[in-house]
């Protein structure tokens, strides 16, 4: 297993009486696309700001690229880190290219790449020379992403990176992220849009009220909660009795009737393969079979109902 690029160990942060982040630990290995999800105010942005060293932790430790985030080599670490804050803001009087040059100079990155980074972020040449105050939300987000990529970072922190992007922009954005990940860049992104990230992240962490409620792949989280999979089956004419007889012998199935000749079979994650095998063995009874896994939203809501905050999916 590759070494962890992001190491968070027992990190806590309070603002007065409010415990914004409480005893959070997780690792992100190199070259992973890691999601951070949670309700509003769960502590996602605070945790990202802690990981960047923008605020100091009350407890625990954070290492980026093997170095303490606010240690003696903090400049070296930050040169390899890209950051796109939530609702990114820039200096309205600067043009797109001036903005990028300013941050490139601060970062010690080459100025030569600024124009190509803007092009790659989907900002055309005319936009390079326009003041940022004339940019739409989506254009600012693209500029923010280009800024985060200055200096070829090895770690990216992206806080709600797709807000303001249209569906085409979102697809292009993730395409770039996959390219970066394939080149070994480690990416941590927070998002509210669970449908958008569920099939795109390699693993994720779920925060609730500042605490880490779960961490792992989406499938591991589904299994930890044992959320049922749903199999939708369209029946042939006159086979209802035989189908019900078949299902009665299968473990842990609940059946509900849908529109027309469709039924929904709900079964636990552990029984899923057994049920599917049985249905496929009797394929003459069915017109069509369609399996639907619980979505990340179902996982999120499932954890919200959990009384016990200690459930952790394995790594």
């Amino acid at each position, binding site marked *: 297993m590759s070494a962890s690029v992001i190491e968070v160990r027992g990190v806590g942060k309070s603002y007065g009486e409010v415990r914004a982040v409480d005893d959070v630990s997780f690792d992100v290995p190199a070259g992973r696309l890691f999601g951070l999800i949670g309700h509003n105010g769960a502590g996602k942005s605070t945790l990202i700001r802690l990981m960047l060293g*923008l605020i*100091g932790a009350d407890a625990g430790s954070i290492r980026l690229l093997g170095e303490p985030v*606010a240690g*003696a080599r*903090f*400049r070296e670490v930050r040169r390899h880190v890209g*950051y796109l804050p939530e609702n990114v803001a820039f*200096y309205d009087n600067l043009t797109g290219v001036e903005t990028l040059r300013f941050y490139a100079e*601060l*970062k010690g990155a080459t100025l030569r790449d600024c124009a190509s980074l803007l092009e790659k972020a989907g900002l055309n040449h005319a936009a390079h020379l326009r003041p940022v105050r004339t940019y739409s939300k989506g254009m600012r987000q693209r500029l923010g992403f280009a800024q985060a990529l200055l200096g070829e970072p090895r770690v990216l922190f992206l806080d709600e990176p797709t807000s303001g992007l249209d569906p085409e922009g979102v697809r292009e954005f993730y395409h770039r992220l996959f390219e970066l990940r394939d080149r070994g860049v480690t990416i941590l992104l927070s998002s509210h849009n669970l449908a958008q990230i569920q099939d795109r992240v390699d693993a994720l962490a779920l925060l609730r009220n500042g605490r880490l409620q779960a961490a792992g792949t989406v499938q591991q989280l589904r299994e930890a909660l044992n959320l049922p999979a749903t199999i939708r089956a369209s029946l042939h004419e006159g086979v209802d009795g035989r189908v019900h007889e078949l299902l009665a012998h299968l473990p842990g199935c609940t059946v509900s009737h849908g529109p027309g000749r469709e039924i929904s079979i709900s079964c636990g994650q552990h029984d899923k393969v057994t049920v599917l095998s049985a249905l496929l063995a009797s394929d003459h009874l069915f017109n069509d079979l369609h399996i639907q896994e619980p979505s990340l939203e179902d996982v999120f809501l499932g954890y919200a109902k959990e009384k016990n905050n200690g459930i952790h999916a394995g790594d």
Partner: protein
Amino acid sequence: MAFMPAIELRPILVIARKEFWDRLRNRWVLAIAAIFTVFALVIAYFGAAQGGAVGFQNMDVTIVSLVSLVIYIVPLIALILGYDAVVGEGERGTLDLLLSQPLTRLELLLGKYCGLAGALAVSTVAGFGLVGILLSHGIGLPALARYGTFVMSTLLLGCAFLSLAVLVSVIASNRVVASGLAIALWFLFVLVYDLVLLGLLVATSGRKFAGVFPLLLLLNPADIFRILNVYAMEEVRALYGLATVMPDQLARPWLLCTAMLAWILVPLAAAYRLFRKP
């Protein structure tokens, strides 16, 4: 113990250059230089009008009149220039991105300060310098040197109030509070302080405060500026009516300059102390 990284020059220069060019580009520098030029010209020409004459005549009288003006206007300009240096970044939402770069909070503060001080210096030197060149015809070198001292002390006064402004920008939670604090500082140092001091002197017939009076004057950068410019000129002291109240202990330019430098460095150090804790 907290780790204290060494200061690097490059991030300071990058931030300073941006601050400076922002002020140059939005014509702030030009506007302030024009204001200084016009005021200096008008005062130089009409400054001796109370003596029944107009025209460019007496440099000392011109400087005294300019001092009276500068003491009001330069602190105000410096406070307006710097009151939102840090709090403005926070409110715009640009501070986090700045602080995530490879720079320390001290470098950010110094960069901001140097850039703004540069803008103030260029407008001050350009505005008053232009008038200095115009006046240089027909006046002696000593008078010109006194004018040069006046311009430099104006710059120091501006830098001291800019330091206070940066401190305000770190203390205040938002720009409205910062502007309120900046105006309060202007009232305190430019209007209220001298009145209170005078009131105390009159009320006690100068007896109780004789010892601490010079020290109290050093606690106000505007007073230091006034003393630097006025006390050095013999004939003006009489004209200004200061000879009777100005203590002799303060007739040391090095002391006044050191006090002014302290007014630049101490608020900046305090600003860093408050700003460094993330």
